[in-house]
């Protein structure tokens, strides 16, 4: 069944696969094309069409021109917010997850299975169960409507994933390696630094890609705990469509959507293999 001859049945396979590929690519193509058409051109025809002339200024307007509420600074400040939330939260949750995963898998201590079990329940607990408590905690520590507050949330909640990823990776490391190092007098951190970390590149890449993608794309916490100029880009996109619903500017909006989606798309294209590994690791649990 797996021959390479071009029988009619194989032509059919290629035809079906190509049709599906076109369907998957179409929305992206539409937005890319629209981002290069003027608002007027789109208004006269439909969202689907070729640009008559390339309206690159949509990108300039989307980046730093159009207005959301009273501020006319484009999408740039919100992109910056997303960067300032996503990068620290990704780094913190990955480092803490790697150390905790290492402790749980290779050091073993009293109660480790229990606490690990509870932490991984965080993969399943709906965010809606945590919305009110987070509101109260953030208000009490003065971090409501701040980027720091979002970093805190994503670091703590991200741990459920990062600990799981790292622990499942580290359990495969032979215990003899650790035992030998301990007999030589190496401590917890020394073993982590000298032995574990050099072995960790693949799982750290998976974890970083997973965390970055999830935190960048997150919307609910962003829209609940921040307002106005403090919002991450996902929340700003919604605010933007609501703000200009009366006089749509689909060209500029399309450019804004492309800009907002670009970081995670680039990471996916560059690290696809690790992205998929994270997906399956997250699913199998």
């Amino acid at each position: 069944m797996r021959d390479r001859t071009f029988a009619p049945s194989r032509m059919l396979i290629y035809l079906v696969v190509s049709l599906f590929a076109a369907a998957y690519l179409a929305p992206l193509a539409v937005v890319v094309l629209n981002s290069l058409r003027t608002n007027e051109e789109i208004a006269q025809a439909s969202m689907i069409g070729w640009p008559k002339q390339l309206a690159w200024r949509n990108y300039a307007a989307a980046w730093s021109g159009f207005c959301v509420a009273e501020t006319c600074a484009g999408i740039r400040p919100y992109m910056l917010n997303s960067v300032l939330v996503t990068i620290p939260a990704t780094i913190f949750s990955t480092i803490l997850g790697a150390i905790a995963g290492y402790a749980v898998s290779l050091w073993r201590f009293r109660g480790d299975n229990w606490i690990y079990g509870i932490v991984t329940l965080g993969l399943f607990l709906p965010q809606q169960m945590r919305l009110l408590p987070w509101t109260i905690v953030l208000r009490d520590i003065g971090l409501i409507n701040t980027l720091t507050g979002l970093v805190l949330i994503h670091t703590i909640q991200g741990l459920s994933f990062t600990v799981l990823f790292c622990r499942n990776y580290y359990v495969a490391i032979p215990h003899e390696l650790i035992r030998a190092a301990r007999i030589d007098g190496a401590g917890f951190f020394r073993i982590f630094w000298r032995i574990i970390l050099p072995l960790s590149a693949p799982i750290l890449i998976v974890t970083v890609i997973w965390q970055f993608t999830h935190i960048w794309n997150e919307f609910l916490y962003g829209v609940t705990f921040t307002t106005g100029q403090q919002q991450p880009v996902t929340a700003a996109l919604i605010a933007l469509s609501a703000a200009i619903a009366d006089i749509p500017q689909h060209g500029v909006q399309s450019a804004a959507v492309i800009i907002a989606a670009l970081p995670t798309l680039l990471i996916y294209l560059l690290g696809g293999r690790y992205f998929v590994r994270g997906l399956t690791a997250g699913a199998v649990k």
Partner: protein
Amino acid sequence: MTSAVSTATQPGRPATSEMVRRLPEYLTIWLPLLVSAAHLVSFSLWTIWISFTPSTLVPVSGWVGLRNYTAVLASRNWQIAFDNLLLFGSAFVLLSLVTGLMLAILLDQRIRGENVLRTIFLYPLAVSFVVTGTVWSWLLNPGIGIQKLVHDLGWTSFRFDWLVDRDMAIWTIVIAAVWQSSGFAMALFLAGLRSVDADIIKAAQIDGAGPIRIYRRVILPTLWPITITVVVVQLQFAISAFDLVRALTNGGPGIATQLPALVVYDLMFQRGQLGRGAAAAVLMLLILLAVLLPYAAWRYVQRRRSNHA
């Protein structure tokens, strides 16, 4: 930790200094895990508690029994959301399973450009639901999207206005959700197809079985554990779906595409009904548990069986 035993001969001080020396170690191990575990447990318990209080704009103590739950369950908003969840959840899971399995089987035929195609089918997963919802809200908007295009091409009686049709609007969310995450099903199925023992396939071929027969009788039966995993993961997404709906229909037209997560948000942050919002959140959790507990039990049985074998 284990090596603390060696200092036990000298009571008192050395053990303490050993503790102090290893304090950074204990802190880095325990603190993140404890904070994470503590927030999960305490946040859940607190939300459950609030669901039994008369809290409205601010959390207050008090006890109203199940009154918040009966109020939520009796509300039209929740009833529509729950019906929508049943329809959306089953349609979305079924369609993405079928699409994912079909794509996986097609990609498994040693076709050229498999890597490019896989990249194409999976890229929607890298994009946020906000972006997906926004883009599909344009495509499905009858005034500017696909319907307008077809009209401009000359077929003016063509209708594709589900986005503004109360009865059909929920299907627009199904379309966008299947587009976004059927690649996930494909990736898992493809991995499953690739791990089928080549010898079994060869044996079936020698017995004279054709490709369709081999798929139906030999390969597909090995995929059912993966199928269950895919179903559970997709259901988990469906139950807590929020961003996609918010960007695509915002629950409308009217409240036709309301889903539980939107009801929770609405009660908590727009109507100032914290007690009822918490009750709706707990109901969401219960729906989720109705899916996850049987799954966990099944996993447990599977694991025990494979340990005995």
